[in-house]
């Protein structure tokens, strides 16, 4: 029998990334179509439609035209949606639907490595779809300031914060009882509506404004607006936005990796 190298690589996590990329490649056309179609429809209906109405009757929002104000929020939301898809679906497939993780666990990779691999591959996917979104926003004239490209980075950062936490949440699910639909309806939708997406958060009364404060979408949107058109944020608040999203990434990844290990060692 020929001998093969059995040294356990320090980079086993990259094999989990490769696995995800192999699957994503099969969905490339759908990803591309959704990536272009979704923002185009959004911008045509809400951005241009409502934007024209707002701009015709006001001097804009936050000192800029409505579409410019709206664009960073749409970008941040797109990144979050993409990150959720790329973390929750693989985790559900691996643990519940096809149970592939229970086959992979017999290889040298650990549960922690699998979790990290999914999250890293989500970075690539989020960067790709958010990048397309940004280009379409730019084509629509919504990203016309010099530093607008920075909003792409802040959106990806926000997406990965939600992705890390959702990776952990998905790893807790034992049975698929429509959990993803519940998350979409009762977490994502309120977050989308009450995070200052369509209007500044300060216009909301205090008793619902807290939803925005805890929502990663609002923190990501605020950073995106600062990066995109110079929305005024005090330095301390900017640090809080970055730290808050960083906390989601840190805690989400820590508990997700731990949970993956525990669940695959049962």
């Amino acid at each position, binding site marked *: *029998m020929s001998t093969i190298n059995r040294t356990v690589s320090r980079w086993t996590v990259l094999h989990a990334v490769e*696995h995800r990329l192999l699957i994503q490649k099969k969905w490339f056309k759908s990803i591309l179509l959704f990536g272009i179609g979704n923002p185009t429809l959004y911008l045509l209906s809400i951005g241009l439609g409502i934007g024209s109405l707002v701009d015709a009757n006001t001097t804009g929002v936050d000192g800029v035209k409505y579409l410019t104000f709206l664009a960073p929020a749409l970008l941040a939301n797109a990144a979050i949606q993409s990150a959720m898809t790329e973390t929750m679906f693989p985790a559900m497939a691996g643990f519940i639907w096809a149970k*592939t993780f229970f086959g992979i666990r017999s290889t040298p990779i650990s549960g922690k490595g699998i979790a990290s691999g999914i999250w890293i591959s989500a970075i690539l996917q989020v960067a790709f779809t958010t990048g397309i979104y940004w280009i379409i926003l730019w084509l629509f004239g919504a990203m016309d300031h010099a530093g607008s490209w920075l909003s792409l980075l802040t959106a990806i950062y926000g997406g990965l914060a939600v992705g890390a936490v959702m990776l952990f949440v998905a790893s807790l699910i034992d049975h698929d009882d429509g959990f993803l639909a519940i998350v979409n309806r009762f977490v994502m939708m309120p977050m989308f509506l009450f995070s200052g997406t369509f209007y500044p958060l300060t216009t909301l009364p205090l008793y619902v404004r807290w939803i925005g404060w805890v929502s990663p979408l609002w923190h990501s949107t605020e950073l995106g607006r600062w990066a995109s058109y110079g929305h005024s944020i005090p330095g301390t608040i900017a640090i809080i936005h970055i730290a808050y999203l960083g906390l989601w990434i840190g805690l989400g990844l820590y508990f997700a990796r731990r949970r993956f290990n525990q669940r695959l*060692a049962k």
Partner: protein
Amino acid sequence: MPANSSEIVIEATNLKKVYGDFVAVNGINFKVTKGESFGLLGPNGAGKSTTMRMISATLTRSEGDLKILGLDPVTKAPQIRAHLGVIPQQDHLDNELTVAENLYIYGRYFGLSRAYLKPKVEELLEFAQLVEKRNEKVEALSGGMKRRLTIARGLINQPEILMLDEPTTGLDPQARHILWDRLFRLKEEGVTLILTTHYMDEAEQLCDRIVVMDNGTIMAEGSPAGLIAEYSSKEVLELRFGSNKNIEAAKALEGYGDRLEILPDRILLYCNDAEAVLEKVNHDGMKPLTSLVRRSSLEDVFLRLTGRTLVE
């Protein structure tokens, strides 16, 4: 016979696994030498799969000591898994990938190069008789094909120890014999086989040594022939008198053989010459609906040791 009986590749000492109040494996001891084919037999819930998973370094023990290739799975699990091939009870294949991609990506998890995997995947597709299905998605395969793919997947890293948890469940007889042939060849190459199965012929064909487990403990240990010699008679006479008449008939059959077992559907008479006993039964006027003379098997050993059949 083991290829190198001096080298111990698996050593379990007082190995125990507890889930809350439930003791799945209760302080078992065994050693497996390099090149040996070692079988774990027992009914569902006996602790076989739990033992297999502890050996596979995917489940930590609660107590005792376990060494795989001289390494402790608590601290060296990835290093141990790099040397193992695991064929689990459930296939756990990736339905989104093709047949060939399933083999390829599994190999990548072992850190195997693309240059190694390209011919290896082809070799294993041939072995699994799935060459024509190489570009099909897994969900399009039949149950038997999926099982063959799972077995092929377990060989991707040329394992030193191959763990087979009920490997041929769902395979047709021809595929089972092909797998047995392949396992024999691996054994000749020095690969250690650890096997659980519900098929007695499979255990007798493949295993040098067997442990019979029940309720998390080892009931007996030895070669298939040795276990049969120790715990059963040479032959068995199976008699059916009808479901409501077996118990009554059994009373009349006392003393006809060395031992007697009453099962829900039949009576087993253990003896050295079953033909002679059958003649005597007929001569004495007892009229069984059906009768069968056969040699003793591991099933009989298990029945003797645990009072239960292996497949429940």
